[in-house]
């Protein structure tokens, strides 16, 4: 699997390159700013680009802008945005085109190597990886509503669904059987009046739309 990395700090760029190579990825380019990223992606056509948010020259949200630009230009390249901080606003923007193959994670998550590699593969395969912190921001904005009807276990499952995890991954994380997870999910969708979705990514979008729709009330 071919990867392009955009990260301005050499220490992290080299570390990430080594970590991905050790796990069998082919890092075809490692660049340090948004323009170089767009150039590298258009020449290499990798499966996924891993992009830091703060990049030169402005050190603001260059990475998000570059990622949105890449979504338009090279829809076949998945994008995983990593950052020292997460903002719901950026997550919403990254997911706004409704296509899969998008991730947004804190750099902290890289330390759990197995989980991080799983997220990279998931995103490259057209799925979604949203940081638990983003999901927590979504939940903290909730005013009263049908969410209160969910049991604590169902809330946990909803959170993992929003992160983009598959039923099997949710089952493993919560130490449940896949059957039990499916039952929980059916209950959640019924209580929130959401339609069942065919892919994990559609499911993420539905859950996010639901959670954000509530904000505007």
């Amino acid at each position, binding site marked *: 699997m071919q990867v392009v990395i955009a990260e301005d700090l050499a220490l992290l760029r080299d570390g990430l390159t080594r970590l991905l190579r050790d796990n069998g990825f082919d890092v075809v380019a490692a660049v340090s700013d948004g323009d170089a990223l767009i150039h590298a992606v258009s020449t290499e056509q990798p499966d996924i680009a891993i992009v830091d*948010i703060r990049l030169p020259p402005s050190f*603001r*949200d260059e990475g998000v802008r570059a990622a949105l630009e890449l979504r338009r230009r090279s829809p076949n390249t998945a994008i995983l945005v990593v950052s*020292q*901080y997460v*903002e*719901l*606003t950026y997550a919403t923007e990254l997911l706004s085109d409704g296509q899969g193959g998008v991730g947004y994670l*804190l*750099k*902290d998550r890289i*330390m*759990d190597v197995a989980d991080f590699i799983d997220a990279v593969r998931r995103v490259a395969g057209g799925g979604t990886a949203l940081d638990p912190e983003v999901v927590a*921001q979504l939940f*903290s*904005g*909730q*005013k009263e509503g049908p969410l209160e009807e969910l049991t604590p276990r169902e809330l946990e499952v909803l959170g993992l669904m929003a992160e983009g995890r598959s039923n099997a991954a949710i089952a493993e994380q919560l130490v449940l059987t896949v059957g039990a997870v499916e039952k929980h999910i059916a209950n959640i969708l019924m209580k929130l009046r959401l339609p069942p979705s065919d892919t994990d990514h559609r499911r993420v979008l539905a859950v996010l739309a639901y959670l954000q729709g509530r*904000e505007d*009330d």
Partner: protein
Amino acid sequence: MGRLLRPLVSWDTYRAFAYYVATVVLGSVALAVLIAGWTITLVLAITPLVVPLLIGLRFGVGALAGAEGGLARGLLDVNVSPQMESPAAGFWARGFAVLKDPTFWRQQAHLLLGWLIAIVALAPFSLGIQALAIPLYYDSVGGVDFGWRTVDTRGEALALVPVGLALIVVGIYLLAAWRKLSRGLARSLLAGDGGRIVRSPEETSARRLRALTITSLISTAIVVALVVIWALTGQGYFWPIWPLLGLSLVVGIPGWVILVLERREISRFTLGSQALAIQIGVSAVIFGFLVAIWAITTRGYFWPIWPAFGLALLAVGHAAVVYGRRQHRIERLERSRAGAVDVQESELRRIERDLHDGAQARLVALGMSLGMAEQALDSDPEAVRALLAEARRGAGEALEELRDLARGIRPPILTDRGLEPALTALTARSPLPVTLSVDLAERPPAAVETAAYFTVAESLANVIKHGRATRVDIGIRSQNGTLVAEIVDDGAGGADPQGPGLMGLRQRAEALEGTLQVTSPDGGPTTVRAVLPCRS
């Protein structure tokens, strides 16, 4: 042919004629008002009475300009609506505000220039009508004397009839040109501030210098011409001294004003006040003018001492006002700077302690875990696994603490995107329903953004903590070069403005020379209002 005859049959011509007739009348009234008003005002300039007089004059000029605006709208088809500024607060400030109000001066200029143009535009008509009437009355007055000849026969009188008619026709054709001039004059002098052209400082300064140069050149030319005339006409008494003196005022006063405006360092000698520098300089010019008059006239009793005394008294009064204001400002700055230093000091202390007790301690523990793992590498692989997992957890916690710390200094999204997205993100996380309206003309300075953000964040946290509120309204807007942040909740009120949270916000605002107001009557609602200047 049609084109040529159009001015004679055009309705606009006769409306313009009506406009000039009305303007001559109105302008004469205006002239009387201005002469009387300014004379009284100047005579009473050193008494407090000058303020009500100025305000009265302002209203008089405003009303007359309003009437001229109405005439111009109705008869010249120009869209102007003369306006008056709302008066400033404070007794003396109101008087100064009148003098500083550019529309006041532009309206007076229009009253005078409009009157002059009307007289010139109507002159051919009045001469023409006079010529037409001569055949009717030349006999009864025993001939009309034109200076170079006297009209006293029927033939001569009748010969004037075509002259009169020609004058009136010429007047009608000229009306179109006058009408154009008057429309431009009304548009540039009577339109409200909407018509004011915004110029860059460089352009303004170039225009000022150009105007001064032109004034000086014209004045010099006039003086030279007069001296030549004096020399050619038998010399004798050197009368050109009088126009010379007058023109020296015309050049000297604007020259000094422009010099003060262009060279800021001059006002360093006058407590930083350009107005005071201008006043002192203009007083000196006037004094010099009076001394010159004294010197070339009687030379007896030194009467200029009295106006000099009055001018000096005015300057001293003005200086006292400037000094008082400056002291007040210095005191306020010192107070707020001390507050800002306090805020910064306690913030730095908090950050240092957070780093020391949090991230640093965690990194030490992480290093210890890694060291122990290294030791156990050969003997106990199971223990190594546990130690490494612990190390990773520690690193994760250190990161989290550092992130919270960074967010408390300045939230990343505020840096990335600015105030509105940052506040949208903040309010989206609030458990209470919040309405947010942001209306900013341009992005404020970073320090103002940060202060506004934390004012909203802290107030919102307060509301959630004990407001017993069901909703919060947040408004951010630009107003006269300041940013106004207002947070209103429908809670029970009774917030303590002296509490540490609000005190911190007040110091934050004062450090930027802004203010923070809290109104929180028992029973609510509570309003927190921060006004933060955006100019650097």
